């Protein structure tokens, strides 16, 4: 019964979305306020309906309703409750439902928090969101319906893939999808602006919080995925340049460019048509990612051809959405007149450089991900494009980028003084030189590129702090004045500082991963491995029953110079239902380095393969990402974006720090 309710709610949501995509659009064209207001109600009702259908599917999973085909295929009565709930999106149909749920959440948020938008713009934005929702609801209902039933019910389900039975499944996909789908708001704003033919500073100010919020979610989502891979895979890799990862990384890269270019639109009323294009491309790449992952085209071009229904549908959606928006762009963008002029060396110039490099980096990832598919499809040779390609093409673009991030914020708007900025960064030179020298000395004979990477990180860190110190005029005015300036600095300025510091922290983590050590031994109980000053002794391995698996749990005593440090418990879990074994690693971190232990096979004599890794600075990769996302959130809390803040012009002048933007 509840399942049918969910099913009907989803069908109803489709009709509501169809109304949402047409009525407000017509209303906006005819200046009919009543019709425009329909968009808002539809968005809220649509959210209620998709939430209902999400809950209905969850109910089917939690109660193990084995008349629902999707539950049979992906659940089992013995599965722990957490995985019954998260298993809802651990499969194709359910994850598409999550996608649409996030989309309706975004539309509802726009409907609720858009009191300061002109009604016509709001109506058009919601209508565009309605169109996207219509497309994806049709996709779910026609090709990937999670509510299909079967009778008689199956005695039990097939269970969830053991690899996915991890707390990571609870957070990673929702954050990732929120980020993906959140960019649909920027996309809708861009399309609405093209229809209206007007893009101004106010428009940029309205779009920015939505872009920032989705960017934060996507950053967290990607970082969580990377961390999940790290602790699950058993050898400590954290990024693989896998097509599925690239699918989420591409919108992130262009989304980052979008955040930066929209600053220029807001402050200087220029780069408008480029910003609109970025907004379109960002969401288009989210759609491309969905297509790549959902159509099966990645496994093989031929798998796509044998079961083409889903793939063709998404491809069609892709063509309509991307083709349509780009066509609209081609027609309307030339009418958008660029405003403020600026010299190549200026804050705007630096932001343009950021955009060029990020876009090229994204294009490189796009090429590396899709070129092999393209070549295969046209009958060319089968290629693998793996990390060596990306290390040689993507990484070199990021080096000038990171260097520029240090300098850009020091330049003035319109016409900057590069020489002056470079002189004022003297602290950063010292920090870089010291870091490089110390790193080179400590790791003598090790990888040289990693030393340069650490130097890059030190450069960025010091440059960002220098910029902040300048902003509060530290040591130039009395300390009290500096503190007062720091207090009155807008949140968006703090946001930028945090985000850039986060990047510096992550860069150090990337670079230092070259220093990882490994030790792999076959141990008898009592045997030990030495790594990076630690002594790891395998005490015993016990067989422990789990909820739906049995685990071989190793007890490993870690000592450092004879002193007890900790006990570690890596496991191997055997899932009888799927006849699969997974590894559960044990990680001990002191935030400067991880000690990472994975338990391997045992042989007939009862000896165990134990893999130990020592990974310096690896936690910084994710700490940096979290700091970046935190920066985004701080910037988001700037009162400038808040509802009703537009009418606050007079109070602004009271702030002592002028022109304190990004």
């Amino acid at each position, binding site marked *: 019964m509840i399942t049918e309710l969910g099913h009907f709610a989803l069908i109803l949501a489709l009709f509501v979305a169809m109304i949402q995509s047409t009525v407000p659009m017509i209303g906006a064209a005819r200046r009919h306020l009543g019709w425009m207001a329909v968009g808002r109600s539809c968005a809220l009702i649509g959210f209620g309906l998709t939430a209902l259908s999400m809950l209905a599917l969850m109910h089917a999973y939690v109660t193990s309703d084995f008349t629902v085909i999707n539950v049979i295929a992906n659940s089992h009565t013995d599965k722990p409750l957490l995985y019954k709930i998260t298993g809802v999106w*651990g499969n194709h149909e359910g994850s598409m439902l999550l996608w649409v749920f996030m989309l309706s959440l975004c539309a509802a948020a726009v409907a609720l928090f858009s009191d300061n938008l002109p009604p016509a713009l709001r109506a058009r934005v919601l209508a565009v969101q309605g169109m996207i929702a219509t497309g994806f609801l049709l996709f779910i209902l026609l090709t990937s319906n999670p509510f299909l039933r079967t009778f008689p019910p199956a005695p039990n389900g097939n269970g969830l893939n053991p690899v*996915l039975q991890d707390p990571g*499944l609870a957070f990673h*996909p929702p954050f990732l999808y929120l980020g993906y789908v959140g960019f649909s708001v920027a996309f809708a704003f861009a399309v609405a602006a093209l229809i209206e033919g007007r893009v101004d500073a106010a428009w940029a100010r309205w779009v920015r919080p939505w872009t920032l919020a989705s960017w934060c979610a996507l950053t967290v989502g990607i970082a969580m995925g990377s961390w999940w891979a790290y602790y*699950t895979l058993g050898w400590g890799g954290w990024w693989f340049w896998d097509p599925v990862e690239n699918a989420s990384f591409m919108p992130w890269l262009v989304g980052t460019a979008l955040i930066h270019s929209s600053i220029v639109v807001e402050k200087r009323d220029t780069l408008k048509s480029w910003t609109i294009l970025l907004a379109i491309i960002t969401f288009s790449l989210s759609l491309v990612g969905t297509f790549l992952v959902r159509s099966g085209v990645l496994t093989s071009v031929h798998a796509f051809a044998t079961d083409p229904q889903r793939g063709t549908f998404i491809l069609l959606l892709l063509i309509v959405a991307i083709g349509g928006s780009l066509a609209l762009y081609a027609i309307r963008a030339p009418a958008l007149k660029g405003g403020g002029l600026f010299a190549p060396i200026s804050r705007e110039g630096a932001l343009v450089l950021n955009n*060029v490099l990020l*876009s090229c980096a994204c294009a490189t990832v796009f090429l590396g991900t899709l*070129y092999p598919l393209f070549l295969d499809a046209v009958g060319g040779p089968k290629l*693998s494009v793996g990390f060596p390609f990306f290390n040689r093409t993507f990484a070199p673009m990021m080096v000038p980028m990171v260097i520029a991030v240090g300098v850009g914020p020091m330049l003035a708007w319109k016409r900057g003084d590069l020489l002056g900025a470079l002189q004022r960064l003297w602290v950063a030179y010292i920090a870089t030189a010291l870091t490089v020298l110390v790193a080179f000395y400590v790791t003598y004979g090790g990888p040289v590129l990693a030393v340069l990477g650490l130097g890059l990180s030190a450069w960025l860190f010091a440059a960002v702090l220098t910029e902040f110190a300048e902003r509060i005029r530290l040591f130039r005015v009395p300390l009290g004045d500096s503190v007062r300036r720091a207090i009155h600095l807008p949140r968006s300025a703090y946001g930028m500082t945090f985000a850039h510091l986060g990047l510096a922290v992550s860069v150090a983590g990337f670079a230092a991963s070259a220093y990882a050590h490994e030790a792999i031994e076959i141990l008898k109980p009592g045997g030990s491995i030495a790594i990076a000053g630690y002594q790891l002794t395998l005490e015993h391995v016990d067989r422990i029953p789990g909820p739906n698996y049995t685990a071989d749990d190793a007890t490993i005593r870690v000592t450092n110079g004879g002193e007890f440090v900790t006990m570690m418990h890596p496991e191997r879990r055997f899932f009888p239902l799927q006849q*699969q074994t997974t590894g559960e690693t044990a990680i001990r971190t002191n935030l400067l380095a991880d000690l990472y232990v994975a338990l391997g096979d045992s042989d007939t004599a009862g000896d165990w393969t134990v893999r130990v890794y020592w990974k310096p600075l690896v936690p910084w990769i994710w700490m940096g990402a979290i700091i970046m996302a935190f920066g985004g959130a701080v910037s988001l809390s700037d009162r400038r974006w808040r509802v009703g803040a537009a009418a606050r012009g007079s109070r602004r002048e009271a702030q002592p720090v002028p022109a304190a933007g990004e």
Partner: protein
Amino acid sequence: MRFLCALMLLVGFAAHAVEPSERLANPALEVRARTISGELRCLVCQNESIDESGADLAHDIRLFVRERLTAGDTDTQTIQAVVNRYGAFVLLKPPVEPATYVLWYGPPILVVAGLVGTFLWLRRRQAASADTVPLSAEETSRLDGLMRENDG
């Protein structure tokens, strides 16, 4: 999306990467073997190198690489031997050949074109604005009049 990736990597979970039993006694050869394995793709996994993969096939290729190295092959010869056996698909680093020119030369060309294009665009915009004809005396006086009107 990582969970889907994990799904595809499933094959790699039965065991873990490099087994101690595979290792060569000669540490110099073993280091070379590890470097080579890092750049060869496990054919049954998604984007995992044979050094990282626990699949049986990866195990076989690792042993094959070590056999070749022990037999005295150079690194290039060893990689070529693997390619002869399993095809160019095993190379995580695609070869530079006409079919991959776009792949290898595309990104640097794009960066250069992007930077040059942006610079030219900025220059043209500035030049265009410099061409703006200044107001004539008559226009100026009319503008002044309008401004005064506004102030009053």
